[in-house]
Every structure is written in structure tokens, then in C-alpha cells.
């Protein structure tokens, strides 16, 4: 598949998984990665809420990101009013969606949590949702450590169908 040339918004889960499988360099080498301040904080030791934590070097992380956005209250309010289910997300996921919904350009979002994917489905933005698997594959990177299921392309496609059916978005 052709590699996506526009901005790729990545959430905490995607960053941590890319780091876990040693794919961060390949990922940021292949794409214009962007995120929000909340996600950067959530990737740092003590804030990951993961066991074990990944040792993610902040400088190396920031060097690989084309932009780290500060999300305003106006953007958060707009996202919450547009779909109240945004409130069911973690701070990083919530801020990333608020940032995405405030943009007018063509972006894609890599965030594997079903609740995050559900927002995309509900807002008819399914085509903007990408898996880490697909991004790496399109960039020509084959990880030595296997990705967890929720980051794989087949899982994403299956989950999007399931969510779309539940949301009444497909017959």
C-alpha cells in the first residue's frame, strides 16, 4: 500500500507499543507524527500506568514528533459537545480527539482503544483510523517483536465492523 503522507496523530498506547517493539525510529522516519501534550506526559515513567513500564526517553520521543499540540478548553468543549462519548476516554485520548476534530486538514489517527475507535465510528470518521501494524507495514518495517493484537490491522478491521454494527452505522 502507498504510504500516508499527511499528519498521523498518535496516542499514548500507540507510542508505548511502538517503543516496546523497537519501532519508534521507523515510525517517525516514515511519517509526520503529531500528538498532544497529555500523551507525551502519559508516555513518561511514572505516568504510563503500565506494568512493566517502557523507558521512553523524552528527548528521543520529542525529536521524532513533528508537533506536540496544546489543546485549548475551546477545542475540548467543542469535542465534548459534538460527541459526549469523548468523556469516556482517558485524558490523552480525549485531548487527541479534541485536537483532531479541530483540524481542517487531512489527518489519520492511530489509537487502538475500542472507545477511541468508537468515537471515530460514531462521527463517521472510520476512514481516518489506522493501525500501527499498517503504518509500519507501509513504511516497510517488519518488527522482530510481534505487535499485540489490538495494534494489528486485521484486529482493527474486525473491530471497526463490530463497532459500526453496534452504532447502527452499517446495515
Amino acid at each position, binding site marked *: 500500500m502507498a504510504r500516508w503522507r499527511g499528519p498521523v496523530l498518535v496516542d*499514548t*498506547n500507540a507510542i508505548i*507499543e511502538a517503543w516496546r517493539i523497537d519501532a519508534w525510529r521507523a515510525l517517525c522516519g516514515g511519517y509526520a507524527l503529531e500528538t498532544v501534550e497529555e500523551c507525551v506526559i*502519559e508516555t513518561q515513567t511514572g505516568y504510563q*500506568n*503500565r*506494568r512493566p513500564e517502557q523507558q521512553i526517553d523524552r528527548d528521543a520521543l520529542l525529536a521524532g514528533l513533528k508537533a506536540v499540540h496544546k489543546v485549548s*478548553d*475551546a477545542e*475540548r*468543549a*467543542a469535542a*465534548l*459537545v*459534538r*460527541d*459526549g*462519548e469523548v*468523556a*469516556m*476516554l*482517558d485524558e*490523552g*485520548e480525549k485531548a487527541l480527539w479534541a485536537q483532531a476534530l479541530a483540524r481542517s486538514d487531512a489527518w489519520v489517527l492511530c489509537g*487502538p*482503544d*475500542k*472507545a*477511541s*475507535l*468508537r468515537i471515530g465510528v460514531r462521527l463517521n470518521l472510520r476512514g481516518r483510523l489506522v493501525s500501527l501494524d499498517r503504518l509500519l507495514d507501509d513504511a516497510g518495517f517488519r518488527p522482530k517483536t510481534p505487535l*499485540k*493484537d*489490538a495494534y494489528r490491522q486485521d*484486529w482493527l478491521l474486525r*473491530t471497526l465492523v463490530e*463497532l459500526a454494527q*453496534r452504532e447502527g452505522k452499517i446495515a
Partner: protein
Amino acid sequence: MAVSALIGQRLKALREERNLSQDDLARLFGFKDRQTVSAIETGERRLSADELLLAVRELGAPLDYFTDPFRLVGEGRFNWRQSNVPPAVLGAYERVAGQIIAAFRTLGTQVGEKPPLVRHSLRLTKTSRFEDAAEAGERFAAEHNLGEVPAQRLAEVMERDLNILVLMVTPSHAGVSGAACRLPDLDVVLINRDEVPGRRHFDLAHELFHILTWDAMPPVHVEDATETGGANRVEQLANSFASALLMPARIVREAADWRSLREDALIARLNATADRLEVTSSALVWRLASLELLTKADARAISASEAIRNNGHPTGLFADSRAAGRPALFSKRFVEIVARAVEEGRVSIRKIAGLLGLSVDDLGSLFAAHGVPAPYEL
């Protein structure tokens, strides 16, 4: 709850807290009349993003106050059983407990659970006699078929038959024994799962009394965790109820010829019977006194004795068995709702893990502890 209804509810709660009228709010928003405010408060009219920001700015409350479904605002009354917990610590933990309870309610609604249609209550009042409360406890155990060891199935019966959510928790302070919480559409009992079984069971039965008598005798916000009730009559009634429920007269009478036992033999039988009934020896002593199987003077002397401390397991055996039998966090019903909500994408894993005070990777263990199939993993 739809976000427009949630925002409206929170706006109303904040308006009332600030002693503002609907007219005051209408002026603040620049509406022509208070009917628009009324429509927003009932969720009939959606607030725009700009209006929401105006509310944030003018009322001085964060955006999350209006939109976070995982907090209790203007609802939820607690009764805490505790020992020497600083008020600020208890207040902080009440917010945490409120988030857990709100999570259950929000996620339950999301996955299609309906709140209980009927709320149970006991026909007791503040003027009821202690004997009446004890009789109610005895009847509760009998009518719900709690069997020879009523403590064992009490939590299950409370959840299944009375629709009371019973959550085993690890509070931030060891002095928190438990709590009852009443919401308009939900009753909850929280129990410190790190306490010895006897105390846990007594706290559970005690809080059950508060839930079942909340309207007739609203409990105080904070009470001392004793098994005799101190000076407060409602707490004394709650203890009479709990004591009789966990130690029905027939079972206690059949356990020994209590009046004939003396000194070491009495202590040994007390500790053995308390272990069997999964109560504390101290609670059993006072139950025997209320049944006139022990004199009050003997009860006072024995309850102060080291020989019944930890039900006579001074080397920590009781503590060891407590660790082995420590209940899993929360409850199966609670965990089932969480698992369904996660699986259906109703809540993000990072969000719910944070609310429950767990890491993302600990959630799997929580599901396994209750035999609930784990949803997907991140």
C-alpha cells in the same frame, strides 16, 4: 446519560450550590428568560460549546465538572465507619469512592442495565427497641436462608436479592472500615477488604441496616467503627441488627452451654464459635450478653481480655487466614459491567484502569479473580 442531560444536571447542581436563581443564570448566559435555563437543566436544550465555555469561565468550575460522568455531583450521601481517619484523608477517599460508584452507574447504563425498580426497607424507626432491631436481623437471616454461617452469603444475598452493590475496596487509610452510600437510584456498601473477616462481616451487616433504614433514620456522615455502637442510638440499633443477623440466637445457644463455662474453657469456646461464625470474639461476647447468656460484667471483662484478641490467634494465624481469604477487589457484578463496557468500547481501558486505581496490565488479574472473561488487551 446523554452529555446534554449531564451538563444540565451539573449546571443545576452548581447553581443551587451557589444560591443562584435560573434568572441569574439567564442573565449570565444572555438568554431572554429563565425558561431557556430550565430547558438546559432538564437536558431538553443542548448547550453550545461557546455557552459551555461561558459557564466554565463565569461560574469558575472546570470543564470536567460539567462533562465528567465519573463523579458524583450534588448527589450521593455517605455513612463512613472508621477509626481515627483524618477528615481530609476521608474526604479525599470519598471522592475516589464516588468515582468508582459513578463508574458502575455510568457503565451499567451504557451496557443497558436498568436501576432497580424497587428499594427495600425495614419497618423500624429511631424509637424502635433494640430487641426490634435484633428480631429484624434474625428474620433477615432466616428469610434469606443465610444458613448456619450467615456471614458467608450475606454479600451475595445483598447484591442478588436486594440489588445493593457490595464493593470490596482497599481504602487509602487502614482506619476506614466501610461505608454505605445512597444515590437516588442506587445503594452501595463499601467494605475494607484488608480487615479481618469478622470485622468485614460486621461492617457489612451494619451498613446493610443503614441502607434498609436510610429514610427513617438517616445515618451520620462519619461514625466510629465499634461493635457496641457508642452513644448514637441509630448506630446501636444498627449493631443490634448486625449482631443478630450474623449470630442468630438459635445457633449461638446451640454452640455451647454458655452459662456453665468458666475461664479458659469459656474463652476457648468463644474463640472457636466466633471463628466458625466468621465474626469477632468481641462481637460474640456482646451478642451473648444481649441474649443474657453472659452477664454484662463478664462481657466487659472478657471483651477487654487479650485472650480473645484476633479470636485467640495471637501469633497471627487469624491474620494469615485473613490474607488467604481476602476477597477480590470490588465484586463480580461490578467487574462484569466493567468488562462488558470495555469490550463494547464504552470506556477506554486507560480511563477505567485509572479510575479503579489499577494499572492497565492489572485489569486482566481483576477479571480473572472474578472468573470474568477478559476483554481485549492493549
